[in-house]
């Protein structure tokens, strides 16, 4: 017994030394970076007003590199599909919520909804935006589920699927709509860029919130006859 623990320890030592060497080399490489000139900050600043939002990060996220965000909504959708395709999960034991949780959730949930709305709106000119608002909404959903709330089976069919897919769907539809009116793919012409981004963000927030809550639940909610 002792010898394989000994080899285990020797192996572990070897691993640690190897990883320390890698860390040292990466550290040296990072320190060697000269950070004076580099970065797209100025470029983003120059094109900011053409992007329809005044906050640089939101501009990059939804206009300059909007394609990344589109695919990333796809990632969320695939994760949800994967979780739902894995089939039933021992459902979260919704023992009746204690009085404290009950009252607290009744107070907190509307608060969270409000914060999510605010974050969505403020994203245009200050830190905030679809993902942050969506995750707050998701947190609100998690809290509701902890308090024993379940989606009514009537809404658990096509409607739920539409909400889940709406984030990616609207983004794709709006971007291809741009094609039809003569712009390039995902090219929001400046006058209406702000409104379009807000539309996309609003729907995205709803969809991200629902997806994150569903990921927490882990299995497809009890669905009525499969519509």
């Amino acid at each position, binding site marked *: 017994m002792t010898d394989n623990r000994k080899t285990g320890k020797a192996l572990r030592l070897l691993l640690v030394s190897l990883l320390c060497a890698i860390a040292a080399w990466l550290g040296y490489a990072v320190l060697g970076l000269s950070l004076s000139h580099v970065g797209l900050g100025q470029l983003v600043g120059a094109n900011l007003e053409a992007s329809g939002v005044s906050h640089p990060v939101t501009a990059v996220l939804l206009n300059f590199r909007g394609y990344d965000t589109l695919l990333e909504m796809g990632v969320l959708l695939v994760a949800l599909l994967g979780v739902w395709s894995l089939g039933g999960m*021992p459902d979260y034991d919704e023992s009746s919520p204690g009085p404290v949780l009950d009252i607290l959730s009744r107070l907190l949930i509307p608060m969270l909804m409000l914060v999510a709305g605010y974050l969505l709106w403020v994203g245009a000119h200050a*830190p*905030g*935006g679809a*993902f*942050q608002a969506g*995750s707050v909404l*998701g*947190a609100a959903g998690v809290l509701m589920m902890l308090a024993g709330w379940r989606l009514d089976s009537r809404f658990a069919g096509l409607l739920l699927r539409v909400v889940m897919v709406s984030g990616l769907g609207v983004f794709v539809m709006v971007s291809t709509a741009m094609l039809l009116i003569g712009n390039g793919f995902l090219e929001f012409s400046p006058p209406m860029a702000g409104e379009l981004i807000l539309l996309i963000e609003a729907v995205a927030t709803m969809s991200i919130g629902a997806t994150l809550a569903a990921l927490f639940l882990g299995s497809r909610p009890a669905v009525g006859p499969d519509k």
Partner: protein
Amino acid sequence: MLHWAFDSLLGLSLLWLAWRALTSPDLFKAIVLFISFGLLMSLAWVRLGAPDVALAEAAIGAGLTGALLLAALARLESIGEAGRQKGSIGETGAHDR
């Protein structure tokens, strides 16, 4: 000078929290440590001038991932119990390794 001290303190505590979270024997404790690591990380994002990332990290990184991990742990234990009732040679308890 004060910044430097605060940054190095924050960095060290982050490293220490991460190390504890990854190597603590009890799983529940590991997850709680991981959540606190996430919260402290959002502080670090603010120090680095990235409020958006701080918000995202707090809401998703600490909040939601923490909730998912805790829910998974709870279910893992209920599976472990069910396994033991059926007499299958399930794990002795989720709190090992």
